[in-house]
């Protein structure tokens, strides 16, 4: 069976970073390690300024992930959709690189005639159902996020409901930034069930700083380095992936 893992950071924020490293660079670093960074910008009646918007898109782009700006009410649906979409993108990326090995340099799934594409898609679907998934959730708890936190919690419970309907295993971990003492603080260690998120979560809120860059950097160290996405190719025993990169 397929033994690779898909690793994602899901960043939930409502504005621009204002402390520490450039989050876009940190996201690029994550991507280099085979970790996808997805960003969800939560707005209410307020609108995220141009600068915040650019940063959100930038982080997802350099992190190889998906970004979306949503109203708080639509958060639940978005969180699961973004996670799924990013997961499929990753799988497709892996499948495409295999296709290139087999069919030659410039071939990707889109270059196949539609009839053949269907068969490849079945493989992508199958992997999406069974692959092991690790999602590290980074929640912005700066002052402006305070009243959105109950909604964020709801959305995270909903995410675990969606992903736990899959056959494959899931691991979740939750970090908040800024933390009480440090830039980033671990709230929940790796667990298959997000239901363990305490009620404390909704009341969390600290200062006005938003150290998004340092938060991503810390998140990276939370993933076990040995099992990066690249190993997904060599450790796999399914025929589609027999050839390693």
């Amino acid at each position, binding site marked *: 069976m397929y033994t690779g893992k898909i690793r994602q950071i899901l960043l939930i924020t409502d504005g621009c970073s204002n402390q520490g490293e450039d989050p876009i660079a940190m996201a690029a670093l994550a991507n280099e390690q085979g970790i996808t960074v997805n960003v969800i910008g939560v707005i209410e009646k307020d609108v995220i300024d141009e600068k915040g918007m650019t940063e959100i898109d930038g982080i997802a782009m350099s992190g190889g992930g998906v970004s979306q700006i949503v109203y708080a009410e639509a958060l639940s649906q978005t969180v699961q959709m973004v996670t799924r979409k990013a997961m*499929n993108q990753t799988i*497709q990326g892996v499948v495409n690189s295999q296709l290139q090995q087999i069919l030659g340099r410039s071939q990707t799934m889109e270059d196949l005639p539609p009839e053949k*594409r269907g068969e490849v898609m079945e493989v992508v*679907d199958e992997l999406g159902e069974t692959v092991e998934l690790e999602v590290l959730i980074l929640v912005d708890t700066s002052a402006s996020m305070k009243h959105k936190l109950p909604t964020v919690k709801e959305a995270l419970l909903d995410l675990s409901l*969606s992903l736990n309907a899959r056959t494959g295993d899931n691991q979740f971990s939750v970090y908040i930034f800024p933390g009480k003492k440090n830039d980033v603080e671990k709230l929940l260690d790796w667990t298959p069930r997000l239901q363990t998120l305490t009620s404390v979560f909704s009341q969390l809120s600290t200062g006005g700083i938003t150290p998004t860059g340092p938060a991503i950097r810390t998140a990276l160290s939370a993933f076990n380095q040995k099992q990066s996405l690249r190993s997904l190719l060599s450790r796999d025993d399914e025929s589609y992936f027999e050839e390693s990169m």
Partner: protein
Amino acid sequence: MMMNHTLKNQCKVSPGTIISGKWHSHNYTIIKELGFGANGVVYLAKHKNTQVALKMSDNGMSITSEVNVLKSFAKVQGPPTLGPSLLDVDDWQSPRGRISFYVMEYIQGPDFLTFIHEKGKTWTSVLFLQLLNDLDILHENGWVFGDLKPENLIVTGPPPKIRCIDVGGTTIQGRAIKEFTEFYDRGYWGLGSRKAESSYDLFAVAMIMINTAYPKRFNKTTGGISQLREAVRQKPELIKFEKVIVKALQGHYTNAKQMRADLFDMMVEKKITNPPLRSTGATNHASIQTQQKNMKGNQPASRQAYRRKKKKSGWMEFLFIAVVLGILYAWYTFNNLP
């Protein structure tokens, strides 16, 4: 919404645009937009004087995935009720890049709630019986529809026939539901998992029944069965189906046939157990049948039944009508097969 931004921009084409396929070289002239969702835009288009529906998306994966579902539906025996039939799959080299699309049969008609609103609530039960029949075939073939909601149900005709469109959420049984809408999702209400099972769709059917009495839907407060049961009890038109609705909401039906049988019994039983109401009950039921028959092709037998019913005499007569209607209905369903 970044993804949708790109999607909307890329897939926005104006009427008159000619979409030509790269692989099969068919041409389609866009007539108008029919609707758009998370996974793409659907257009009404013309191909050699035939109207077709064309769905395009810059996300080639979702197009391929839906095409796989439609292809698998095409293999199922019987009338093509499961989804629209698939006509073509191709890529279009648009001025803004390559866009994947597929072409399907154009299913014309109002959506479910609009139809009920226009034709009256007497149609509700008939359409639900039809829907449950189709879902049963779908489930028997190993699929779960997933994103079942009134917007994805079109009533075509005459004779009125419910059809499911948009197979974006259609999932192989046992996997995780691909796409859903909160109000119709049992996970959202805390009443079950998001695993693709028959009972997942049946929950959505019960929510659509509730939706007919609450056209604007409502939000989750306490969630769970208590909130939904309370919503049912507040509407007289729902109370009579309370048993079926609640049973479906709690996931007690393992297949669509059971729910259909209960719903059917409820419509018949009502007339027998409530003698004071029986004539009105009979009228409703008979007129549904008669209307349906008339649209089908004016069977004299049903006209007769209609006249008899008007006399509103006694028990015997009523029983006779019930039996005749039963036979007619069976005959009608049988007739509807190819």
